[in-house]
């Protein structure tokens, strides 16, 4: 089914067009994460000749002794000098089956905020574990953050298997240890793959070095994993971004509510409610540049035309009338704090949730989360840089929100310090 009624320019996935998988990679500095990504790009033939030439030259100059594929992804001058990845970098590669966006996030402890950032847009998370070291606090943290950010698919790559002679018992013991950790997580799909990123074993092709491992290779798994069911197609949520009112002769009475569907499926004729006002009306049409659409679903950007002349503006939410969320002046949320100065009760911040911004005061910092164990420290009264914890906010005006676990689009927000305009935190509605 195409997304629009007009054939020209319409989406047509049934014709076999590739879809998109967004993944986040995490790993400690020495786990070989950059090497793995370099390997994926290289072995899927997506490294260009001039890039390879550049990497080869730089490796030689640094005295690496091999073509250091990690250099493909280390973008900024400081990183190349220090030899570590210091920020979220986005990488792109494609196979005939799928296109991939990798949010490559640093593994070093002080960069939790970047890991949260990378995970926020990902469907799947790749955790790297050095076979020689086994499950570390670092890998536990990565798994927890993936789980907290609502990622349903985890791939645990047990890397550097060549350095433990491809010993199956090493792989099995890492797997058992990780499964123990994972019992506390809410990740329904965990896959374990033994690899050597440096040599490319089990990355794109299955390795002969591990006859005991039946597969799949990492890329094969990434091509097949089904993430379409992770979306919420039940609860209709449409945050209004922008009102289109041409007031031109040809479109004198046109009044369209533009936005991106956050969840659910909208169809013409359906009854909807505008929040927070609570006014009810019906969808007259779903308009797009390519013509009217028969349905709108995430992540489509469309324009809704309503049957009645109700007041709607940016920041409002149009929802299915039969299952609408409540507007609230109080939010309880898991917050990742990203500013140098700690977050304490009494702090005044701006909250931006979907398309609505309101002021908020922190009523209480309820607890701090040990991101490694997911244990709560209920005595905590502040969140420092890179801390995560539960916070209660009182809002200056009502917000329409859903719990993050049921709705990523209407359950996530950012916190902005209005004196500096910096983004200082990220929150997930409890």
């Amino acid at each position, binding site marked *: *089914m195409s997304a629009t009624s007009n054939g*020209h*320019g319409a*989406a*047509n*996935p049934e014709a076999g*067009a*590739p*879809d*998109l998988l967004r993944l986040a990679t995490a790993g400690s500095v020495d786990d070989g994460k950059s090497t793995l990504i370099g390997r994926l790009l290289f072995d899927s033939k997506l490294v260009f*000749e*001039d*890039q390879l030439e*550049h990497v080869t030259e*730089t490796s030689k100059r640094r005295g690496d002794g091999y073509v250091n594929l990690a250099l493909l*992804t280390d*973008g*900024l001058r400081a990183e190349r000098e220090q030899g570590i990845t210091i*920020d*979220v*970098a*986005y990488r*792109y590669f*494609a196979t005939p089956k*799928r*296109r991939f966006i990798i949010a490559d996030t640093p593994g070093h402890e002080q960069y939790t905020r970047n890991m949260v*950032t990378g995970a*926020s*847009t990902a469907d799947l998370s790749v955790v790297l574990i050095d076979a020689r070291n086994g499950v570390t606090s670092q890998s536990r943290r990565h798994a927890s953050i993936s789980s907290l950010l609502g990622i349903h698919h985890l791939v645990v790559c047990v890397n550097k298997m060549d350095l433990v002679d491809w010993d199956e018992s090493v792989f099995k013991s890492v797997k058992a240890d990780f499964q123990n950790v994972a019992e506390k997580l809410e990740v329904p799909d965990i896959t374990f793959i033994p690899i050597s990123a440096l040599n490319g074993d089990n990355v794109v092709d299955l390795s002969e070095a591990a006859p005991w491992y039946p597969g799949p290779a990492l890329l094969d798994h990434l091509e097949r994993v089904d993430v*379409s069911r992770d*979306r919420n*197609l039940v609860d209709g949520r449409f945050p209004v*971004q*922008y009102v*289109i*009112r*041409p007031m031109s002769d*040809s*479109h004198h009475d*046109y009044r369209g509510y*533009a936005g*991106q569907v956050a969840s659910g*499926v909208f169809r013409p004729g359906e009854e909807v409610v505008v929040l927070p006002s609570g006014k009810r009306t019906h969808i007259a049409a779903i308009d797009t*540049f*390519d013509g009217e659409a028969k*349905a709108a679903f995430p*992540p*489509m*950007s469309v324009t809704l035309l309503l049957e009645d002349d109700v007041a709607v503006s940016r920041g409002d939410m149009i929802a299915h009338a039969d299952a609408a969320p409540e507007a609230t002046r109080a939010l309880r949320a898991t917050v990742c704090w*990203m500013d140098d100065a700690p977050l304490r009760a009494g702090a005044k911040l701006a909250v*931006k949730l*979907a398309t609505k911004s309101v002021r908020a005061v922190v009523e209480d910092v309820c607890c701090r989360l040990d991101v490694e164990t997911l244990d709560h420290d209920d005595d905590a009264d502040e969140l420092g840089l890179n801390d995560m914890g539960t916070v209660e906010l009182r809002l200056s005006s009502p917000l329409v929100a859903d719990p993050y676990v049921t709705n990523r689009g209407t359950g*996530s*927000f*950012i916190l902005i310090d*209005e004196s500096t*305009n*910096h*983004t200082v935190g*990220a929150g997930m509605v409890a």
Partner: protein
Amino acid sequence: MNYKLDELRQLEAEGIHIMREVAAELERPVLLFSGGKDSIVLLRLAEKAFRPGRFPFPLMHIDTGHNFPEVIDYRDRRVAELGEELIVASVQESIDQGRVKEETGPRASRNQLQTTTLLDGIEKHGFDAAFGGARRDEERARAKERIFSFRDDFGQWDPKEQRPELWNIYNGRVRKGEHVRVFPISNWTELDVWSYIQAEELEVPSIYFAHEREVFRRDGMLLAASDFVALQEGEKTFTASVRYRTVGDMAVTGGVESTAASIDEVVGEIAATRITERGETRADDRASEAAMEDRKRVGYF
């Protein structure tokens, strides 16, 4: 119904969302339009985001004066077709006013000079947001840049002080004098851009298709013979069938030997290419390992 969007339509939906966020949250945005393929895609996304209304921003072309005439023809035709406003900020004027000094020597270009013209244009019109067609797959420094990229009141980018960017929630808050550069096609690759142009049947300037041109070889690239560049000793012009992968200052933008005369053939060639767009066609990026990062820091596109 399976309620799935293919990859291109997902990227399109993201781009439209980004544009509408800017239109809603910033006071005076502008869209940087060069006539190149990436900004051609931006214009289509703007149509999809705001029609049947008008664009809530003007377009601005930073005109180096070293143009391919085909691109200027195309620019004017496209702007007229859209019925939107175009501002031309001219590097020549910046030179005439003494704001910048023309580079000299055989490898002189107006690429660096554009930064001053761009920042002056942004300041003169009081723009607080500028849409650009930059993509993260282009270059390593770009791979780390946010979709909403904050610039201070000197137009500078500080890669270490970037605002965290999560989900699809953007922070475009600026004070007077500051602005954000916004890149709605950050997540697109060169192949995505061409595939989209193909799917949308968009017109592009003719220089993107193979044509016969008087060229000469320099630094392994085929540069067009023009008034803007002087031949050095040993360089000879010859006629070749070339097409361009990027549109830039004519003096430093290389063509690639090609016979791809249609959009389908261009998409086929791009899918099979083994060299990056910038590596193949931009002399300015070959200058040093961190050439792009350095230019971006001071306010380049």
